[in-house]
C-alpha cells in the first residue's frame, strides 16, 4: 500500500509548487488590476502623478513573484528541473505543507495590500507631497508576504534534507 502511495509523492510536491505559483499569482494579478483601475482614475485627473501611482499599483505584484520563487525552489528540490525525483508520499506531503504559507499568506496579503495601496492613492490625490508616507501603509503589508516566503523557503529546503 505504502509503495503505491510513494509513487504519488512527487505528485503532491508538484501540486504544492504549482499552487505556490498559481494562487499568489492570481491574487497579484487581481490586485494589480484593481490598483490599475484606481490609478487610471488618478491619472485622468493628474497625469503628473504617473510614476508615484505606478509604484503603488505594483506593490501587490510582488506576491506573485514570491510564489514563483517558492515554486522554482520546490521544482529544483524534487527533481522536476533535473536530478533525482524519488520522493516518498510523506515527503511529497511535506513539500506541499511547506508551500502552504506562501499560498495562503501570498493570496491574502496581495488583496489586502491592494486595498491599502488604493487608499494611499487617495492620499496622493489630495497631497502629492506626502507620497513617502502614503507608500508606507501598503508597504507594511509586504512584511507578512516576506515572512511567509522565508518560512516556505526554509521549509522546502529543510524537507529536502529529511530522509523519509
Amino acid at each position, binding site marked *: 500500500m505504502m509503495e503505491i502511495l510513494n509513487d504519488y509523492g512527487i505528485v503532491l510536491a508538484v501540486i504544492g509548487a504549482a499552487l505556490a505559483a498559481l494562487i499568489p499569482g492570481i491574487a497579484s494579478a487581481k490586485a494589480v488590476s484593481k490598483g490599475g483601475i*484606481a490609478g487610471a482614475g488618478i491619472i485622468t485627473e493628474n497625469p503628473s502623478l504617473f510614476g508615484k501611482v505606478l509604484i503603488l499599483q505594483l506593490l501587490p505584484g510582488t506576491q506573485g513573484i514570491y510564489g514563483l520563487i517558492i515554486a522554482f525552489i520546490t521544482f529544483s528540490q524534487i527533481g522536476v528541473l533535473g536530478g533525482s525525483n524519488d520522493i516518498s508520499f510523506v515527503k511529497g506531503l511535506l513539500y506541499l505543507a511547506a508551500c502552504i504559507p506562501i499560498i495562503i499568506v501570498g493570496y491574502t496579503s496581495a488583496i489586502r495590500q491592494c486595498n491599502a495601496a488604493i487608499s494611499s492613492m487617495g492620499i496622493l490625490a489630495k497631497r502629492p507631497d506626502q507620497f513617502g508616507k502614503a507608500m508606507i501603509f501598503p508597504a507594511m503589508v509586504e512584511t507578512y508576504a516576506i515572512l511567509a516566503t522565508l518560512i516556505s523557503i526554509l521549509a522546502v529546503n529543510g524537507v529536502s534534507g529529511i530522509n523519509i
Partner: protein
Amino acid sequence: MKNKLHNSNSSDSGINPYSDVTVNNQFVNAVARIRFKELELLGKTDIESLMSCENEKECLQYLTDKGWGKEGDQTSEQILASEREKTWELLKELVKDISFFHTFLLGNDYHNLKAAIKQVYKGNDTPNVYIPNCTIDPDIIIQAVKEHDFSLLPEVMREAAEEAYQIQLRTGDSQLCDIVLDKAALDRIYSHGKASGNELISQYAELKVAAANINIAIRSVKTGKDEEFLRRALSECESLNIETLIQSALDGMDEIFNYLSTTVYSDGVPALKESAQAFERWCDNKIIEYIRPQKYNPFSLSPLAAYLLARENEIKTVRILLSGKRNDISDDIIRERLREMYV
C-alpha cells in the same frame, strides 16, 4: 426640456445593483477621480471669502474665478444650475448606470408631475417649472398628464398620479393634490433608498422621510389639521412611530417636541423650536455628518453619493449666501443660515 438623466434601469425592477461585490471594484476608478474633485469643493475659507465680499456681484466674480458656471452665465441662478449640471455630467461619466442615484432624483419626478397636473388644470404653459435632473423625461410626464394616459409612467407612479389628477381636476384642491404626490414621492424615495443596500443612501432616505414627517406634523398643528389629514400625509419610516407622531400632533406642539426628544432626532428639537428654517439647516448638517466619513473611504458607491450630497449642500449654501448679499441682509443673519461644508 430633454432630460439627460433619463434612465429606465432602476432598482424598482427588483434587481439590487448595489449589493454585488463587483460593484465595489467598479467604483474604484470613479472614487479615485472623485478625490480630485473634492479638492475643488468650497471649504470654510471659501465661504469666509464669499462672506467678505461687498455684494452679490463680487461673490459671483469670486465663484467665476473658482471655475463656477459656464460661459455665458449671467445670473446667480444660471451659475448654480450650471454647477448642478456639471455634477450630474461628472457622475454620468463616472458611473454608467445612473440608476444608482435615483434615490436623489425621484423627488424631482413627482415635482414635475405636480407641475404638469397644475399646468393642465390651469390650461397654461409656464416656462421653467420642470426640474431637468430626474429619472423620467419631463416631456413624457407632460404627455402622460395632457393625454391622461398614466401608462406612460412607471407602474409605481400610476396610482398616485391618477389620484392626484382626479383630485386636482375634479375638486381643484391643489393642497390635497400636493399631499398625495408628496407622500407618494416620500414612499418611493424611502423604498428605493432602503432597497439600495447602501448604508449612506439608506440613511439619507430615512432622514429625508423623517424630516418631512416632522415638518408635516408641525405645520398641521399650526394650521389645525385633523387626524385624517395626518394619516394621508405622513409616510412610514423606521426612526419615527407614525401613530405616536399623529397622536402627539393632535395633542399639540409640546407633545411633538416631547415625542421627538425620545427619538434619534432629539438633537433637532431645539432647532425645531427655533424655526422651520433652523430645522432644515439641522437636517442639512446631519447629512454632512453622515457623509463626512466617506472622505476616507476608497471603495463602494458611498463616496460618490457623498460627493453628490456635498455638491447639493454647497450649491444650497451659496444660494443662501448670494440671496443674503442681494437683499442686503446682515452678515450675522446670513451666517446663521449657512450650512456646514463637507471639506
